[in-house]
């Protein structure tokens, strides 16, 4: 199974480390020439291969979007056609700049991404937990106190595939609903930053949906 990660920053490299540890083949792309990130990748995520975004997508069974949300329109849509895509992005003004169009889209940010990639299957996951918690908290299956990762997506089969991947990475996958519900995982909502177990995550979602 091959993972293609777009984004070689803090989140992209952490997800690459976790995927490599779980036995996946990993291709990773920064914003430009792979030579620019080759040295970083060699030491930060040994085993991953730095390539162009197009190359990472072509080789991948699952593509992960781990770039600044404001850059989503730069994603090559043609090669992504038919691909399963995990959207791990959030609006983060410190990186994205002040941009109301992406800060407050009429839908969840993942629906906005899905609309941009109409021929891809977008599932939101690995977006709400901070990158240092991702690396510190990953634990084998059935470990007590294992933390949960919320998953939202419109196709149950795709959600299950992402759930298996999340489980392999070291978290209890928790499918919470359709892509629209991804709103509840975004900055400003109770689950943003959440580093909690499955039970707490589900209880928080339930409370959030009521309010």
């Amino acid at each position, binding site marked *: 199974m091959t993972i293609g990660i777009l984004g*070689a*920053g*803090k989140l992209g*490299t*952490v997800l690459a480390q976790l995927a490599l540890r779980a036995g996946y083949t990993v291709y990773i792309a920064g914003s430009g020439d792979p030579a*620019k*990130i080759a*040295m*970083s*990748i*060699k*030491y*930060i*995520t*040994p085993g991953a291969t730095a390539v162009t975004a197009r190359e990472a997508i072509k080789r991948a069974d699952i593509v992960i979007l781990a770039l600044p949300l*404001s850059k989503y329109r730069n994603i090559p849509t043609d090669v992504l056609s038919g691909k399963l895509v995990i959207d791990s992005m959030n609006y*983060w*003004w*410190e*990186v*994205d*700049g*002040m941009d109301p169009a992406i800060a407050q889209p009429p839908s969840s940010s993942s629906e906005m991404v899905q609309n941009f990639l109409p021929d891809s299957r977008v599932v939101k996951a690995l977006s709400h937990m*901070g*990158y*240092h*918690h991702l*690396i*510190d908290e990953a634990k084998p299956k059935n470990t007590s106190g294992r933390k949960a990762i919320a998953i939202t997506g419109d196709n149950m089969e795709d959600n299950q595939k992402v759930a298996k991947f999340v489980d392999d990475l070291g978290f209890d996958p928790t499918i919470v609903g359709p892509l629209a519900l991804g709103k509840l995982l*975004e*900055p*400003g*909502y*109770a689950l*943003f*930053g*959440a*580093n909690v177990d499955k039970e707490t995550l589900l209880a928080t979602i339930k409370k959030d949906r009521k309010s």
Partner: protein
Amino acid sequence: MPTKKNSIKSTVSFGLDSFGDLPVDENGKLMTHAAAIRQVIDEAVLADKLGIDAIALGEHHRSDFAISSPETVLAGIATRTKNIKLASGVTVLSSDDPVRVFERFATLDALSSGRAQVILGRGSFTESFPLFGYDLKDYDVLFEEKIELFAELLKEKPVTWSGTTRAALDKADVFPKTESGKIETFVGVGGSPQSVVRAARYDFPLMLAIIGGSPDRFVPYVDLYKHAAAEFGTSAATIGMHSPGFIADTDAEAAKIAWPAHKTNFDRIGRTRGWPPMAREHFDAEIANGSLYIGSPETVAQKIAASIKTLGVNRFDLVYGGGPMPASARMHMIELYGKKVIPRVRELLGETKRDKL
């Protein structure tokens, strides 16, 4: 500095870092910005008396922090101290003018007889961008170009440079010149691998900002820095880390004082970034396994020594006084850091007697 090329200095330096958080006075009242600045100067004077190696002051442009102009505060400290290094932590170079930064730190270096240090960073707060008329969308190119120009200026020779983010320079000679011929300059890195490579390329010492989670995850960054330096033929002689903490006489007392202050700080920042309030459980987990160095002198010393060993760094800076903390508790913390924690860490590291840096 007796730094040999390609070798890590044998003794560790210890620093204190502040952003000029507003402390509370003995009546629990939040101090003014002006009083908070004078408090930092008194703290630095105490740190100097105790033989602490460095004080680093970071720039912020928001109401909860008093320091927006670190080198001005450092200049005040310079005239009242003897040995302590005077650092910024960090200078947000992207929204500043490298020529001005050089001039100000060269002036600080003169005032302090060679004790100025610059820690350049991209900054995790970005209020300075709109304030000084920069666009966050140019974040990368601003830093890349300005660090290149700053590296040229540090040579203290006439500079010819052109780029897209400021006016070109044609054999511009910039003053004052320093007595040593070089202002010590670090690059602060919060987790961007490209920044690590950049620091190695310019032969700048590295300062890792480790503000959450286990420090272990930075081991690959240290490897990357060393290997990159080997490839570029630079020295990688100094690698530092900075993390937040607080010290009191006992673990319970330290947590009791630090918790409300830390939570206030974290929650206030969280409101602007969209993360929920801090839970006590998260605070306790950061103390136990993460990057909060909070506790008695022994607890904090053990934790610092473990991190220094894990990462192989030769400078450790404790970011102190986060949030509205009593001014007297901050002073006591510095006393414990200088008198108990640092000697104990040296003991744990097997450094019996330290060489003069």
